[in-house]
């Protein structure tokens, strides 16, 4: 019976990737192990499924092209999150420049867009959470997502974002308070 990809260690995956004859197998295992986590991380940033699909593909292509230079100084998964985060930010900025960024839309429009999205199945509170997140500065939003949704330690987030742990704690607390304030304003 084939072992579940989740059980395969990062070390084993990396050793497969490093050998030419098993590189494709190793890379496939890496994608299967991390695709869902990275998908949801990117999705929370770009919101739309099709956009997430594009960013995730670009992310793994970038991973494939640069994994030989992964030195193991950080955990593989924080390195992957770092690439995914950067790809998502690049994508969002490109859309902003073109004026087609849904996350930059007016709050009411964002709420309506989410409600009309066939792949968004949230209630009013969850819609308002997205609106509140949209109001946050980019870095606070990412820190909140990584801590609140991904349940990542501050140490790991600091590796993803290359920021001090102290700064991250402050960002997370500020983000939480701002989101609470938003809910007070909309009275949900």
């Amino acid at each position, binding site marked *: 019976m084939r072992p579940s990809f989740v059980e395969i260690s990062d070390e084993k995956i990396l050793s497969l990737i490093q050998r030419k004859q098993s590189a494709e197998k190793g890379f496939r295992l890496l994608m299967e192990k991390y695709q*869902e986590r990275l998908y949801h991380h990117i999705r929370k940033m770009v919101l739309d499924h099709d956009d997430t*699909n594009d960013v995730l593909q670009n992310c793994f292509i970038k991973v*494939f092209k*640069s994994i030989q*230079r992964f030195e193991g100084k950080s955990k593989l998964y924080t390195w992957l999150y770092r690439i995914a985060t950067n790809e998502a930010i690049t994508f969002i900025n490109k859309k902003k420049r073109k004026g087609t960024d849904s996350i930059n839309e007016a709050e009411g429009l964002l709420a309506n867009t989410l409600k009309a999205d066939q792949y968004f199945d949230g*209630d009013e509170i969850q819609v308002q959470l997205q609106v509140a997140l949209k109001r946050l500065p980019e870095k606070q939003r990412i820190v909140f997502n990584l801590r*609140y949704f991904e349940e990542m*330690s501050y140490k790991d987030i600091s590796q993803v974002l290359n920021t001090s742990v102290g700064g991250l704690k402050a960002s997370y607390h500020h983000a939480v308070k701002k*989101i609470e304030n938003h809910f007070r304003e909309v009275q949900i």
Partner: protein
Amino acid sequence: MDKQRDRKQEIRDELKEISPFLYKMKEKDSPFKVPDHYFNNFSNQVLEQLKQETAESPQKKDIWNLNFIVQAFQDQLALLFQSRLVIGLASVVILAVAAWILYPSGPDQTAVDNLSFASLSVEEIQNYIDDNLETFDEETFKELAHENSNISLLPAEVVGAEEIDQYLDQMIEEMDAEDLEELF
């Protein structure tokens, strides 16, 4: 596994303390849904895309081809500095560095460089530049340009001023409307 559980509990305790409201909201399922079977075929799609890219892009080139080195750096620098003046300046630095690589002072150094540099593919160098572009800064290029301003390091038959001009002109011509728009 225990460590992971402890960490998650710690995160939830922290949240419960600073925001009971958000703590309670965490119990809800994610509202973001994924099309059925999306992940079943995702890795195949990426691998297919990679194979296509590999088939379309040229394989390993002669890394000692100075034209290639210059082109690769100029492509990236065009995006980074977006200024003809700086690109020109940076090109001088790159040519000087390339000359240093091609004509190092000692034979031992040549052997070491051959081992490390010649084994790189075009794609690997492009990726390196992509990934480290943010670490290059304009001041460093200026300093390098000043330190390596002796262009006579480069033999005339390798590259001349005219060739550099041609490169710059060609690069400007190849910039698309979007690149030009970002310049101004």
